[in-house]
């Protein structure tokens, strides 16, 4: 009975073929390939043509899995083919097992798996390509901005110098325009560099204790004047319960709040700007502070509130309001570094409210920190100081020369090539070295390493201050490791240059 059931219900379709050693079919049960007796097995399908030699082997069993054959109805069948040879007394046997259903299921699985692997490999490659493109863009921006800094330093310095000469009112007015334009350009470069740092993931917060009330008062003073220049009123509400000293990145907080206030003033023609700061809560040595800036400006359509935080975006107002549209994008990224968000609530024609809650560190030891940094020493006014300037940019050379010459107590020696630095120091006694970092064929940090290895104590201990636009965290680490004492960021003005120089002169 079992044999009967098997016959009725078995779905397997197998063909048994006995062939001679030359491939001629002797017997066949004709299940898949009918009427083949007398024909050579090679004529059934090219597959058998290439396994012809296996028929001549003795006592072998070969299994060929998943072989695609074409049956007499021209349909593809997927089979396992077994070839069994004997000791020469018996003829070889070929068994064809039709496993089309089974292999078709496998085909579907393999298709999905392979497509998924190939797609992920292609995505990975695209991602690598995009990252390379992004890195190229960031390097380009960094280099381009760097190139802009030297001429900008020249403009800023010589504007300062020019202000101190006898100028007519008309000339002074022209100078103000040059001053304001170059400061705007400087801000643009700073913003573009910040965005490229943010996109490269290289911008990190520097957490230090600072006095938030002093910072807020400072911001208030700056923006009260800016608001008055547009006939607007800046209303400030700084809650009394704000802590005094907190831990955070004061520079970046100032940047966020300044960008938001700048934005509020820019897009408000009539009315007020309200700047509210209050303490949310204090928990586990953390103070959450709420910042809110409300304007009565043009407002933002609801569907566009996300777009305003995208780099280089201004909502159809680019013709009316100047700016690269970077301020809010930078503010958003900086706030996100504190794991917070900036929210915006706005009504077109009525105004906008920008709010954010930022967490700061609250440490009792901060109470001992002095309110303002006091300068430790000042150079003696009657002493003459000798400074070596290592700089290839003629504009920067001239700027520093003019500033130091106006002070009357500095000798300036200039070298433009890295290889001239050590011989010059060996033959002179300098009180300080101002070192450009990117020199033709050499780098200022590498030259400083050589200075620090000089045999004479007075040579190797000379303070070295870098003059550079490259001030990312990794750069600063590298300068410190090379023995550079401090950095003056390009573009600089007279105050920035002199305060650093005076700090290191005894």
């Amino acid at each position, binding site marked *: 009975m079992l044999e009967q059931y098997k016959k009725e219900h078995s779905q397997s379709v197998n063909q048994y073929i006995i062939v001679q050693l030359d491939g001629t079919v002797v017997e066949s049960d004709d299940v898949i390939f009918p009427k083949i007796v007398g024909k050579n097995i090679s004529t059934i*399908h*090219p*597959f058998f*043509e*290439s*396994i012809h*030699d*296996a028929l001549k082997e003795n006592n072998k069993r*070969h*299994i*060929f*899995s*998943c*072989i*695609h054959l074409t049956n007499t109805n021209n349909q593809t069948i*997927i089979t396992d083919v077994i070839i069994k040879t004997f000791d020469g007394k018996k003829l070889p046997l070929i068994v064809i097992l039709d496993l089309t259903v089974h*292999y078709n299921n*496998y*085909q579907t699985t*393999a*298709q999905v798996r*392979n*497509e998924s*692997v*190939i797609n992920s*490999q*292609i995505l990975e*490659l695209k991602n690598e390509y995009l990252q390379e493109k992004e890195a190229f863009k960031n390097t380009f921006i960094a280099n381009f901005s760097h190139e802009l800094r030297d001429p900008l330093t020249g403009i800023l310095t010589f504007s300062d110098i020019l202000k101190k000469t006898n100028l007519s009112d008309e000339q002074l007015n022209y100078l103000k325009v040059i001053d304001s334009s170059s400061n705007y350009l400087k801000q643009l470069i700073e913003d573009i560099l910040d965005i490229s740092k943010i996109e490269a993931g290289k911008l990190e917060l520097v957490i230090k204790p600072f006095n938030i009330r002093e910072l807020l008062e400072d911001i208030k003073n700056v923006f009260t004047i800016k608001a008055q220049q547009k006939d607007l009123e800046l209303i400030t509400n700084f809650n009394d319960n704000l802590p005094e000293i907190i831990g955070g990145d004061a520079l970046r907080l100032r940047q966020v709040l300044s960008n938001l206030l700048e934005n509020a003033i820019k897009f408000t023609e009539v009315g007020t700007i309200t700047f509210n700061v209050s303490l949310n809560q204090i928990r586990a040595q953390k103070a959450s502070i709420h910042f809110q800036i409300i304007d009565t400006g043009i407002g933002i359509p609801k569907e566009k509130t996300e777009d305003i935080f995208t780099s280089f975006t201004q909502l159809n107002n680019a013709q009316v309001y100047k700016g690269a549209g970077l301020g809010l994008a930078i503010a958003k990224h900086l706030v996100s570094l504190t794991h917070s968000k900036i929210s915006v609530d706005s009504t077109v024609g009525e105004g906008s409210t920008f709010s954010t809650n930022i967490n700061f560190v609250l440490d009792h030891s901060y109470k001992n920190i002095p309110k303002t940094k006091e300068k430790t020493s000042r150079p003696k006014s009657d002493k003459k100081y000798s400074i070596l300037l290592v700089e290839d940019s003629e504009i920067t050379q001239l700027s520093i020369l003019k500033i130091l010459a106006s002070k009357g107590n500095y000798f300036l020696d200039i070298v433009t090539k890295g290889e001239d630095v050590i011989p010059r120091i060996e033959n002179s006694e300098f009180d300080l070295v101002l070192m450009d970092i990117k020199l033709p064929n050499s780098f200022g940090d590498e030259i400083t390493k050589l200075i620090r290895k000089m045999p004479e104590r007075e040579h190797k201990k000379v303070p070295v201050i870098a003059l550079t636009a490259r001030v990312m965290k990794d750069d600063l680490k590298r300068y410190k490791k090379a023995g550079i004492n401090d950095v003056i960021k390009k573009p600089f003005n007279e105050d920035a240059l002199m305060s650093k120089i005076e700090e290191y002169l005894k």
Partner: protein
Amino acid sequence: MKISKKIVLIGHFGVGKSSLIRRFVEDTFSEDYKVTIGVHVLKKEVTIPETNDDITLVIWDLEGNDDITNTRPSYLIGTNGFLYVFDMTRPTTYEKLEFDLNYIKERYPNIPMRVIGNKKDLVTNEFIKQNKDVFGRFVDFYTSAKSGKNVDDVFSNLAQALLKEAKK
């Protein structure tokens, strides 16, 4: 002289082995990728013009595998020639090229083999130059199954080598 030789196309999945065969045998091409499982066997007769010899190539299109050591040995029984195919647009398909070629050469020392960088239509000559450390050392033909570039030449070149072997 009329002979029949088995040649095997081997390489990672998705590199275009089936497309090369389809281009050579049927002179067609499809953008759709259909995974090969197991083996497809096709044949084509080639006449070598210089000698007027006919050779029947029985072409085994093996399923792609990212690890050559997993290739089923039964598929390689009686192989007379190899075509190793990789996809120039996907580095994973040629990262282990040297290992794969040595693996075949060690097991089938006297069998002619040609190495093919496929999908030439998707890469520039500049890209090939940039990768000359790999491509320059190993590749015999840059092909495009899509455009047909060099496809006949590959098979014809291997066929000539097989004929030369057969005449020894």
